[in-house]
C-alpha cells in the first residue's frame, strides 16, 4: 500500500481512537459517585435548586442523549464549568497551557540534544566502563520519582546553595515592578520580545529547576532507547560490510547508522513529549508552576471532576494528534511503513 493509503487509514484509525477516548471519558464521568448537579449548586442548596440544575445539565435525559450533548459541547470546545471556582474550564485551560508547554518544550529539547548523543556514544562501545557508568546513570534517571527529585533539587539549590528560587515562574518583585506583557504566554519569549530584561532573568532563573527535573526522565529514556536501536542497526550486515571496506568508525556511526535511526528519533520526540506531559503534573505541583498540572492538582484536592475529565481529554487528544503527526511525517520520509 502506498503512503497516501497509509496516511488515510491512519487518519481513520485516529478518528476511531478519538471516539473511543471520548466514550471512555464519558463512562468515567458517569462513574462518579456523587451527584454532579448537587456539586454544582453546593452543599447547602435546596432540593428544587438541585432538580433545576439537573435539568439544566441535562442529567435527567437518557444516556445516549447525554452522550450526544457531551460530544456536541466538546466540538465547541466547551468543557463545562469547574465545580470549585465556577469559571469556564476552557478559558482556564487556555490560561494555564503555555506555562506547561514551556516546560514540555524545554524538556523535549533537552531530551533530544542530550539523550540521543548519549545513546549513540554508548552504543559505539557496548559494555565498556563508560557504557556501564552511563547505563547506571540512565537507569537511575528512569527510576527516580519525579516529585522526589524535585524536592531534593529544591533542598540543594534553594535551601543549601541559595542559587535558584523555590517556586513559581517569576519573583514577586518582578510581578510588581516589571510585569510581563503577555504575548505568547511563554515568558521567556515574551520578555525577550518586549525587552524586559529583569523579567527575562527572573523567568530564566525560575524555569531552570522545573525544566531540568522534568527533563531527567525523558533524557534517560531517550538515551536508552537510542542505544538499543543503534545497537540493532550496528549489528546489521550492511554496517559490517562498511566496516570491512575500511570506512572510519565515526563515519559509519554518524552517517550510516544514525540515518537509519532518524525515523525512530521522531518517535522518540513523541515519546519524550508524552512522558514530559505526564511528568509535568508532578513537577508543577512541587514547584507551584501555574500550568495545567498544577491546575489538575488543585482539582484533585477539591475533587473537581469536570476539570480532571477535561484535562484528561485535552491531553489525550493532544497525544493522539502528536502521534498521528509523527506517523504521517515518518510515512512521508520512509516509504516502507506498514500499518502494524
Amino acid at each position, binding site marked *: 500500500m502506498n503512503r497516501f493509503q497509509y496516511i488515510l487509514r491512519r487518519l481513520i484509525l485516529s478518528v476511531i*481512537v478519538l471516539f473511543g477516548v471520548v466514550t471512555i471519558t464519558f463512562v468515567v464521568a458517569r462513574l462518579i459517585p456523587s451527584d454532579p448537579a448537587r456539586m454544582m449548586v453546593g452543599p447547602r442548596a435546596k432540593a428544587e435548586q438541585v432538580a433545576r440544575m439537573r435539568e439544566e445539565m441535562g442529567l435527567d435525559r437518557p444516556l445516549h442523549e447525554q452522550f450526544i450533548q457531551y460530544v456536541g459541547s466538546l466540538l465547541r470546545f466547551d468543557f463545562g464549568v469547574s465545580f470549585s471556582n465556577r469559571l469556564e474550564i476552557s478559558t482556564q485551560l487556555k490560561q494555564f497551557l503555555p506555562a506547561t508547554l514551556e516546560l514540555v518544550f524545554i524538556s523535549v529539547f533537552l531530551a533530544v540534544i542530550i539523550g540521543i548523543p548519549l545513546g549513540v556514544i554508548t552504543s559505539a562501545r557496548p559494555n565498556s566502563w563508560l557504557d556501564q557508568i552511563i547505563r*547506571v546513570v540512565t537507569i537511575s534517571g528512569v527510576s527516580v520519582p*519525579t*516529585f522526589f527529585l524535585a524536592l531534593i533539587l529544591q533542598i540543594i539549590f534553594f535551601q543549601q546553595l541559595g542559587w535558584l528560587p523555590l517556586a513559581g515562574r517569576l519573583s514577586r518583585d518582578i510581578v510588581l515592578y516589571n510585569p510581563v506583557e503577555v504575548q505568547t504566554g511563554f515568558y521567556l519569549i515574551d520578555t525577550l520580545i518586549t525587552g524586559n530584561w529583569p523579567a527575562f532573568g527572573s523567568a530564566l532563573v525560575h524555569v531552570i529547576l522545573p525544566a531540568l527535573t522534568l527533563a531527567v526522565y525523558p533524557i534517560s529514556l531517550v538515551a536508552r532507547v537510542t542505544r538499543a536501536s543503534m*545497537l540493532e542497526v550496528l549489528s546489521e550486515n550492511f554496517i559490517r560490510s562498511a566496516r570491512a571496506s575500511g570506512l572510519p568508525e565515526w563515519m559509519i556511526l554518524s552517517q550510516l547508522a544514525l540515518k537509519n535511526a532518524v525515523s525512530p528519533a521522531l518517535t522518540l520526540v513523541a515519546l519524550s513529549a508524552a512522558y514530559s506531559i*505526564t511528568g509535568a503534573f508532578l513537577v508543577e505541583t512541587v514547584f507551584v508552576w501555574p500550568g495545567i498540572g498544577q491546575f489538575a492538582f488543585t482539582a484533585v484536592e477539591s475533587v473537581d471532576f469536570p476539570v*480532571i475529565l477535561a484535562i*484528561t481529554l485535552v*491531553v*489525550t487528544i493532544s497525544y493522539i494528534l502528536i502521534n498521528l503527526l509523527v506517523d504521517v511525517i515518518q510515512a512521508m520520509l520512509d516509504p516502507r511503513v506498514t500499518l502494524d
Partner: protein
Amino acid sequence: MASIGKRWFGDIAGKLEGKKPLKFFRRDPLAAIAVLIILAVFIGAIFAPMIAPYPDQGAGIPVIANKFKPPSREFLMGTDYLGRDIFSRILYGARISLAMGVSIVALGLIIGLPLGAIAGYFGGWTDEFIMRLTDVFLAFPPLLLAIAVSLSLGRSFTSNLIAISVTWWPWYTRMARPLALSIRERQYIDAAKSMGINDWVIIIRHVIPNIAGPVLVEATTEIGLAILTAAGLSFIGLGMPPPAADWGEMVASGRLYIFQQWWFATFPGLAILLTALAFNLLGDSVHEHTNPYTSGKRE
C-alpha cells in the same frame, strides 16, 4: 488449571536455569546488587511486624510526644509529624509498594495476555476490535486516566490498582498478538483442532502457555515503573488514605516540612527510588541477556 500453571512457571524456571545463576551474577554485578536490594525489600515487607522497632507506629498509631525527632539511634530515620518512627513506617510501606507494583503488572497480564492471544488466534473482526480497544486505552497518558478513575472510585488499594492496570494491559496485548499469530499456524494447533477440541480450550491450553514466556519476562521488567506510577498517584493525594504507610503519601506529607524536618520526606523518597532502581536494573540485565544484539557481545 494447576497443571497449566505448573507448565508455565516450570518453563520460565527452565529458561533462567539455563543461565547458570552464579555465573550470571559474577558477570553482572549490578544485577546482583539489584537482586539483593529486592530481596531486602521483600524481607522487610514480609517481616515488617517483626523487624520494625515500633510496629504499631509503623501501622499508624501516633505518638505526638515524639513529633519530629531527627534520625538517631532510637529512631533510625527520625519521626514524622505524628511522632511515628519513620523506619517502621517505611517497612510497612514496603508492603504496599511491592504489592502495588506486582499486582498492577499481574492484573495487566491477566487482562492483556488472553486478549492478545484471542486477537491473534481468531483474527478478523475480533482482532480488529480488540486492537482498536487497545489503541484507545494506549492513547491515554497513564497517570491521567489513573487519576480520573481513582477520583471516581475513591481512595483504596483496589481503586488504585484498577486505575493503573487499566492503562497497563494494552502493552501486553500488543506483545501477545503477533506471538499468537505465529503459534496459530503451528501444526500442534491443527492437531488439537482435528481432535475436536474447541477454540477456547486451544487458546488456554496451547496458545497462551506457548506465548506467555516472553510476555511474562517483559512484564516483570516493568514492576519498577509500576511502583513509580503508584507512588506518583499517592503523591497527588489519591493513594491509600492515612494512616496507611504509603511511601508516596509520606513524601507528600513530608513535603511541607522539607526544609526543617528533611528526614520526613527524604527517606520514603529514597525508598521509592531504591526499590524502583533495583527492579529496573534487574529488568535491564534481563533485557541485555535475552537480547540477541547485545548478549553475544558480552566478554
